[in-house]
């Protein structure tokens, strides 16, 4: 669309460099502006990211995918998306009604599946990732799976403390970028309780089979982190994640 008849044959000098980076280089110019194709490609990527942020979370899809497991659906104190985006404090707390339903049961670990900033990520990746993890952690006593609406990472601290678990793993939709609207992240926290800092967690990010980390290596790292956390009784910056090393050699 950018080339008019007067222009010479389009030999983009940056063409040869394109494969070196996902960055939007060598887009060409119309005057000082973008060619229409590049303009629309950007708008599509942004639209997909925006739609991902605002797509309604359907906890029933996760419940159905885990029909052989006990599940509980809970909500944070953020009643809607607009509030959720502006009040991170509310997304970190359970409603009183849901909080009263969660009690200790001799569990070691809890899994929380939270919409975060991308419901599509959770809809697509949470169940297959959990299945891959369960296959690796048969020796853990796991609480009913908590599925949380309008949840932030730290909601897992509130949930974990109420369930009396030593470890909580929060599977959550990451903030969508233009390159991927459906990345899932996992945050692992030892001895969860409200007030934990981000530096006290370990994170596995960019989980998505197409272009990111696929389920099996993600599950392997998560199981490794859980066992290492149980062994060392901590998570965070002091728990060095060496699980990637054997992966590189495989």
């Amino acid at each position: 669309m950018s080339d008019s008849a007067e222009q010479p044959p389009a030999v983009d000098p940056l063409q040869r460099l394109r494969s070196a980076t996902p960055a939007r280089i060598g887009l060409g110019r119309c005057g000082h502006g973008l060619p229409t194709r590049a303009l629309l490609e950007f708008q599509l990527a942004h639209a997909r990211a925006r739609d991902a942020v605002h797509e309604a979370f359907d906890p029933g899809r996760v419940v159905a995918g885990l029909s052989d497991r006990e599940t509980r659906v809970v909500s944070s104190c953020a009643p809607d998306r607009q509030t959720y985006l502006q009040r991170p404090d509310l997304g970190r707390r359970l409603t009183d009604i849901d909080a009263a339903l969660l009690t200790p049961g001799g569990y070691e670990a809890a899994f929380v599946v939270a919409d975060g900033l991308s419901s599509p990520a959770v809809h697509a990746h949470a169940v297959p990732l959990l299945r891959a993890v369960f296959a690796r952690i048969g020796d853990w006593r796991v609480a009913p799976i908590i599925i949380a609406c309008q949840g932030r990472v730290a909601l897992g601290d509130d949930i974990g403390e109420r369930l009396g678990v030593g470890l909580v793993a929060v599977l959550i939709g990451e903030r969508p970028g233009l390159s991927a609207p459906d990345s899932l992240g996992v945050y692992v926290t030892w001895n969860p309780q409200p007030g934990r800092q981000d530096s006290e967690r370990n994170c596995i990010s960019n989980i998505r089979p197409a272009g990111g980390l696929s389920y099996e290596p993600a599950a392997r790292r998560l199981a490794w982190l859980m066992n290492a956390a149980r062994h060392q009784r901590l998570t965070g910056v002091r728990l060095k994640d060496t699980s990637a090393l054997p992966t590189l050699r495989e």
Partner: protein
Amino acid sequence: MYATTLAGTRHTFPDLKSVLAAATPLRSGDVLAGISASSMAQRVAARYVLADLPLTTFLSEAVIPYEADEVTRLIVDTHDAGAFARVSHMTVGQLREWLLTDDADASALAQLSPGLTPEMVAAVCKLMRNQDLIAVARKRQVVTAFRNTIGLKGRLSVRIQPNHPTDDPTGIAASILDGLLNGCGDAVIGINPASDSVETQILLLRLIDDLRERYAIPTQSCVLAHLTNTIAAIEQQAPVDLVFQSIAGTEAANRGFGIDLAMLREGRDAGLSLARHTVGANVMYFETGQGSALSAGAHHGVDQQTLETRAYAVARAFEPLLVNSVVGFIGPEYLYDGKQIARAALEDHFCGKLLGLPMGVDVCYTNHAEADQDDMDSILTLLGAAGVNFVMGVPGADDVMLNYQSTSYHDALYVRDVLGLHPAPEFEDWLMSLGILDAAGRIQDPRLTAGASERLLSYGGVGK
């Protein structure tokens, strides 16, 4: 206690910081902190109170106690009473009016800067409309230099931000070349590394330095790593031009960044010790952003715009080359939408300039904010009119490492064109010498200037 009665309603504010917070235009971060005005009328009432406050009030009442915070101590201890004398009889409202007059010209504003505290500047900012913020800021030229001269009238510089998700050197070089061919890179070629290792930082510094040396590009480089990493890189003889650090407006928030004023002094000394600068000795690059103190739980009940201005008091103690407000980066819990981001961008630019800082703005947003590229076009155009020293150049506006959207090389060309702005003079000469700009300063199509682009693209074999 501060109070006013308007239309039969009495509005009271327990202290100075409450007046400042309530007077601030609505933004999500102050609501989140629980310090925003309780109604629109109360917001205006706070502005009435502020308008009648003598500027001397700010010398006797600190928003964060002197004993508790080294940033307050820096502000108080370095205040220039002689420079303040020009406006010492004024109220905040009178200061606004004076700033808008022709008496407040470039030289009067430059002389006033050391006499103003950040709280005075934040206060007058809250009384100003967007057009006031533009009209006054454009009068205040702040010129700095390292290998070129940034901030001259009629000039707009651009940082090339060639980030890559895995710090791949070829990918980064490709983004840099694209930026140079689009006339960008005079503010700095500055990489946000994905890795926090000093080894990667040194590798990337050598990459840019090699490119810069080979083509004699009159600009400076930076890898935006933590200050302590940069000091370690300097100790290993890495080619460090600018020393980078994120800073905030309270001692506790700076501690959250892992720094204090003494460390900044040490970093600046280390940068100067290399003596790599040729045109001027401004070796620091700071980034700031409204909301950083609240995010660190270190806001002391002070509104985010006042705290941001206090960060500029930190910056000015170290004579930086560049100060960049990353205005929309921190997210919608601090600035919710395009309107709030635009206001904050103009505030930050105005307040920094009035305090004498070389302000640039990362005109940007995240995907969970209510904003898009149309908002960025508006903000960029407003800042260009306000005389911003520099903006970001990100390929296609899409930062593939930090996952947010900023301004692009194209955007920089657009705003230079519509406002008649030029690159830094030394850099502009270099662009012309390569034929990237023609003799009239017009950007050339790289497909038509094979000589220049081929020379650049032959760099290190990356173009082969």
